[in-house]
């Protein structure tokens, strides 16, 4: 597989939803260490809403399903993560627009857009012990893969590995600001829930092309 078609994007969205729903309690548990233990419930509500609209996602434009998934997440999640995950998909969709095929360069473009959208909305950055700490390294890995003309498989494998490492790194972060700040040293050893969901997203992408 060289490029993802719109239908592949829909399949990936469907698979991501399945994975998230299966990990609801785990994500709640992770959020419980640094926050209010509702991230799993919240993103699960979002993914359930997404599952319901999967039949409506058919289109030749790859951006369509992503954008629609984003607005669905925004409308169904609430909390802090709703706008953030919504933005990730909405910005990704907007970056792809009417494109009918997604290659490595497109993947790099779309997640760069997602990353910048999240940073702006969340007023946060790398090192704040948030989902950005998984999204940023994955995005960088994709840009490197695009520069190196890597295959889709290699690009997504690298991105997934980078996201996984990013999640691992959140364990060692004591944030200077934001929600993880107040727990201070107590946050050490715990990985961020939102970052974990991002890693799951990249793993679904990587597994799909294999």
């Amino acid at each position, binding site marked *: 597989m060289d490029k993802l078609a719109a239908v592949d994007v829909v399949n990936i969205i469907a698979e991501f939803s399945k994975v998230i729903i299966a990990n609801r309690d785990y994500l709640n548990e992770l959020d419980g260490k640094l926050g*209010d233990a*509702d991230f799993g419930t919240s993103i699960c509500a979002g993914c359930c809403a997404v599952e319901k609209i999967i039949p409506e996602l058919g289109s030749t434009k790859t951006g369509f399903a992503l954008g629609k998934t984003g607005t669905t997440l925004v*409308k169904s999640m609430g*909390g*802090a993560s*709703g706008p953030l995950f919504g933005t990730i998909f909405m910005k990704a969709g907007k970056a792809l627009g009417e494109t009918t095929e997604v290659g490595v360069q497109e993947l790099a473009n779309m997640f760069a857009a997602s990353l910048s959208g999240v940073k702006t909305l969340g*007023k946060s950055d790398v090192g704040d012990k948030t989902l950005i700490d998984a999204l940023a390294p994955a995005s960088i890995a994709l840009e490197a893969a695009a520069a190196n003309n890597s295959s889709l498989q290699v690009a997504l494998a690298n991105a997934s590995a980078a996201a996984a490492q990013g999640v691992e790194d959140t364990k060692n972060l004591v944030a200077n600001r934001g*929600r993880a700040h*107040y727990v201070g040293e107590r946050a050490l050893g715990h990985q961020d829930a939102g970052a974990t969901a991002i890693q799951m997203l990249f793993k679904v992408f990587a597994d799909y092309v294999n």
Partner: protein
Amino acid sequence: MKKIINAPDHVLQDMLTGMVAAHPDYVRKLPDYNCLVNRLSPIAGKVGIISGGGSGHEPAHAGFIGKGMLDAACIGNVFSSPTPDHFLEAAKAADSGAGVLMVIKNYSGDLMNSQMAEEMAEFEDVKVARVIVDDDVAVKNSTYTTGRRGIAGTIFVHKIAGAMAARGADLAEVKRVAEKTVANVRSMGMALTPCIVPIAGKANFHLADDEVEIGMGIHGEPGINRCKITTADEITSVLLEKIITDLPFAKGDEVAVLVNGLGATPLMELYIVNKKVSEICAERGIKIYRTYVGEYMTALEMAGASISLLRLDGELKSLLDAPADSIAFKQF
């Protein structure tokens, strides 16, 4: 978990139904949205005032819908921000064409969802402005915030902005007095017991039988320190000291006082707190212009209280004095 509810994931809908049934003369519900709207809104020519946030803080926020206060409120699940479409629909329902002020407490979720709604409102030709309330002097950052939390001082923002809008001021003017209120209000709370989010089913922290948490947030977020419970006088002194030195409130200032119950604290205890508040203010030459004691911004069944002080000038006084006829805040 022992609650008078039907099911953890029904509490929001059941509550909204119960509220509309209780107060049909004050509010109606938007079909398909968790928004309650003033039965009289939109009011021709008047700037709309809306507030939104998670539920579990009742009477905040829908309880402040009524004449001289809110035109609408959108309500999320317990302690969880509503999504942007609910903010947007509340704004649309409140808009008479004069624009809408959103009163938002400083929590990441509320901020982001309302910001998205603000952006969406542009496409719907609704002029929206936002004011962010961050009155809690306890901690700089907390579970859901960057910067200070918004707590009970929000009630004063509703009151002042609501009164200004009722006078016919334009959106910029309403926003100005709302921001002036935010600039002059400081609050801090403490808790004796945790609360239980219905869907979680268990408390997310524990306090020993003789412990209190000073600076506790309205979702059970940690405060400054956990200490042995002492007297009401001492607890009040600690909270008020932090509040007074923060602004700072100075000798000669005139203030409005709000002693707010977090849910399970008897009114008796709130009045006992107020006794000490009035004594400390008297000692310091801070003149109390008006006092409110009761439950205005709660945290489910948490036991505890917060104190808010709002420094007043002539304009704020006259806006605070204006009559209001909302469900839970009435003033002749």
